[in-house]
């Protein structure tokens, strides 16, 4: 009985988080805010679904497996990487480096791989703009 309540709670929480993550993708006004909603909420939603699946397989079907934990671990490892890449893409496409606020260190914003590459590409862009 307790296990059933636990599985039900996991399923309901997972569904709500998945829905909120995708709704945030539609509703939030700024691209950087939109980045926040799915990468956090949907990962937790998938985590809830996989934990519910693991509990169900172990306590009700009777065969335990670690596969769900592998998928959860993989998603938790890759979500920050994809979030960082999409944020870099947004910075690269929508902002010039000189329009961004100062970073507070010697290094500029990391939307290119090196400073020399950034200066080269920006010089090309300025040449084509003028």
């Amino acid at each position, binding site marked *: 009985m307790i296990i*059933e*309540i636990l*599985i*039900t709670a996991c*399923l*309901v929480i*997972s*569904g*709500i988080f*998945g*829905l909120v*993550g*995708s*709704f945030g*993708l*539609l509703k939030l006004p700024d*691209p950087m805010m*939109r*980045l926040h909603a*799915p*990468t956090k909420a*949907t*990962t937790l*939603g*998938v985590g809830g*679904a*996989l934990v*519910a*699946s693991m509990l*169900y*397989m172990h306590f009700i*079907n009777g*065969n335990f*497996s670690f*596969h*769900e934990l*592998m*998928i959860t671990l*993989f*998603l938790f490892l*890759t979500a920050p*990487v*994809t979030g960082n*890449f*999409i944020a*870099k*893409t*947004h910075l*690269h*496409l*929508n902002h010039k480096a000189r329009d961004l606020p100062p970073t507070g260190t010697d290094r500029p914003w990391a*939307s*290119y791989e090196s400073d020399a590459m950034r200066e080269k590409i920006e010089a090309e862009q300025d040449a084509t703009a003028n």
Partner: protein
Amino acid sequence: MIEYALLFAFSCYGLALLMNIYRIIQSPGPGDRILALDTLVINAIALLALFGILEGTTVYFEASMIIAMTGFISTVSFTRFMLRGDIIE
């Protein structure tokens, strides 16, 4: 009790997939489109895990593992293409 929770979670994720498809079709920029595709893949993984609970088998975990890997690789290559104009240099 679990059946109703499963139905609820299925409908939530179905609605989430519809929202993602809307965002892919009508999007303010390529970054949002890539983000919507990434979210679509993650929702598909959750849907597959729920389907595994419904059927009572563990067969679908390998499939969701493969979907997770291809989703990650495709998101990284999309963003890489937007950043550098090339995927493998």
